[in-house]
């Protein structure tokens, strides 16, 4: 594939005559996207009640990327992400209770309440964490891939970041190093059109973000990031190639953030009409439609899943509310590994 050719979307929801997914997969992806959506709606509500502090970056509207990518990756593949990170951990099957507890700053959280919303990690599941300095984790992703290559391990590294990160030096230096060393690294750029409130056209000299991969002469693809099947297929193809010694790959997944950058974003940079128009491409509604059209589940089954997800998230909120805050004695622990 020429480095600058976007992947053809033969198997996207709209284009494919059938769907290249089993009923079990189709339902699982629907459940996970619904779980992420509900989890964040309840997190937003808890933020309003002052139960969650600091920044809270919602992924609502972008769920198909995390779910599609995790469906393509092996459970041992390493994942490292930016700070809009709730979707990745839930898509990989982390208990929502422990994720919500981390948002609440509780001792039972994934990082014992020391990381918060922006720094969700579950290393046992090869989730190496959310990083909140834009682009700063891209060289780290290359390093994780170097460790896999060095140790002859079969896993690839999937590194997620927004299109805004592609304007930072770490994107360039990190991917250049990965390309020179042919590291097993799949970069997934979520192009949601805005870096905070600055539109991609106002921040990036090249708006077709996948074309930036030509700077490293690595394969690149662009997919509809609101199409969970297209994302799954693209990530699977790129991850397989990277795993087989094809070096780093880059996927641009186009999407749209339905909510503000974080809580309290007045959204002066876009119109209500633009947001409403984008919501007509809601990834969950689209997948729901595709699942029903292709008889992969019934309306009743999907409604039951939504009810189950609601209950699961309610339980997560209750767990987070009722969990203890970190013991004050924990303050100075874990700064260094005890030696």
């Amino acid at each position, binding site marked *: 594939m020429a480095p600058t050719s976007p992947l053809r979307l033969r198997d996207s929801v709209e284009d494919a005559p059938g769907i290249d997914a089993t009923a079990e997969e189709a339902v699982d992806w629907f459940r996970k996207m619904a779980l992420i959506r509900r989890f964040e709606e309840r997190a937003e509500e808890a933020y309003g009640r002052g139960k969650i502090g600091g920044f809270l970056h919602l992924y609502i509207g972008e769920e198909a990327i995390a779910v599609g990518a995790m469906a393509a990756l092996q459970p041992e593949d*390493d994942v*490292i992400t930016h700070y809009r990170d709730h979707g990745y951990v839930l898509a990989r099957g982390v208990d929502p209770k422990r994720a919500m507890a981390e948002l609440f700053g509780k001792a039972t*959280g*994934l*990082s*014992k*309440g*020391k*990381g918060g919303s922006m*720094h969700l*990690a*579950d*290393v*046992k599941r090869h989730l*190496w*964490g959310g*990083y909140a*300095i834009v682009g*700063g*984790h*891209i*060289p*780290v*992703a*290359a*390093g*994780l*891939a*170097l*460790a*896999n290559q*060095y*140790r002859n391990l079969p896993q690839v590294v999937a590194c997620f970041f927004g299109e805004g990160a592609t304007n930072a*030096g*770490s994107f360039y*230096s*990190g991917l*250049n*190093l990965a390309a*020179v*060393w042919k590291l097993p690294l799949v970069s997934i750029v979520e192009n949601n059109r805005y870096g905070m409130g600055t539109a991609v056209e106002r921040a990036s000299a090249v708006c077709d973000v996948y074309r930036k991969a030509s700077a490293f002469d690595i394969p690149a693809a662009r997919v509809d990031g609101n199409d969970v099947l297209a994302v799954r297929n693209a990530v699977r193809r790129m991850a397989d190639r990277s795993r087989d010694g094809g070096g780093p790959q880059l996927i641009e997944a186009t999407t749209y953030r339905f909510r503000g950058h974080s809580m309290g974003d007045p959204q002066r940079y876009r119109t209500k009409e633009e947001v409403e128009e984008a919501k007509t491409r809601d990834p969950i509604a689209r997948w729901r439609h595709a699942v029903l059209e292709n008889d992969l589940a019934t309306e009743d089954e999907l409604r039951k899943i939504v009810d189950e997800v609601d209950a699961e998230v309610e339980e997560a909120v209750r767990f987070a509310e009722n969990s203890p805050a970190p013991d004050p004695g924990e303050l100075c*622990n*874990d*700064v*260094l*590994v005890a*030696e």
Partner: protein
Amino acid sequence: MAQKTYRDAVREALREEMLRDENVLILGEEVGVWGGTYAVTRGFHGEFGDKRIRDTPIAEEAIVGAAVGAAMGGLRPVAELMTINFSLVAIDQIVNNAAKIHAMFGSQARVPLVIRTPAGWGQLAATHSQSLESWFAHVPGLLVVMPSTPYDAKGLLKTAIRSDNPVMFIEHSRLYGVKGEVPDAEYTLPIGVSDVKRTGRDVTIVSWSRMLHVALGAAETLAKAGIECEVIDLRTLRPLDLAPVYDSVEKTHRALIVEEDWTTCGMGAEIAARIGRDRFDSLDGPVERMGQVEVPMPYAKNLEELMFPDEVSVAEKVMKMVA
């Protein structure tokens, strides 16, 4: 014991640890084919090959970032930054990633990383002549080591490589040729332990890295005048071990800190504050500090020579303190 240079001591530590643990690798600018810009890794590329001795692009953010990720992934990378000045290009990786990852993720990940980098100068002008150790000693989550002798350099570097924590290991370009006793037998030294390099009763001099040698030279001169300095080498700047300094001040009642960095917000300020807080009643006078003139380093040789304390100015300062 054999006399070896500081360069050879560092080289031996690296080589021994690479032979001991196959997960140790070296990455950095010109560490391989070139043999290291200060020749520390000369011959390593031939001995260990491309996989373990990795030449990198001139991109410090990528070098340190990749080393952080490799360390998280189970390796023990030793990243070389050609000089400490270039660490500023990688400061996000050092401060926001290497130092934070263990704590921020609730101890789920660890970063067993060593960043080797020399301070130093030599008509290199403003951007290539800095010391900057206080920048890193400021940061919880890092260990900062700055040895002055070949013996200390070897023993501390071996410990740093075996450590599960990120270590800034700061060498000095003007110490690489300095010789000292280094045993042939295996040894390591603990990080976070200061060392009394010379005993004396009149004035305590606290120093580290190249300035330690200046302090020892001044102490030698002063001894001829009957003034006995106790010279303490911190060796590690984070965590700070001031116990030997406190013991010394109880005896001498006077303390002078000699550093190569600028003194404003420098290590000496921290050390002076701690001595003042913890041994106020032992002091006969204020804790004194000497360091670099507070200007960007000029190129001209005669101006550069005016920048640092030397044996003469340190001896004069001590004479004033005991007068």
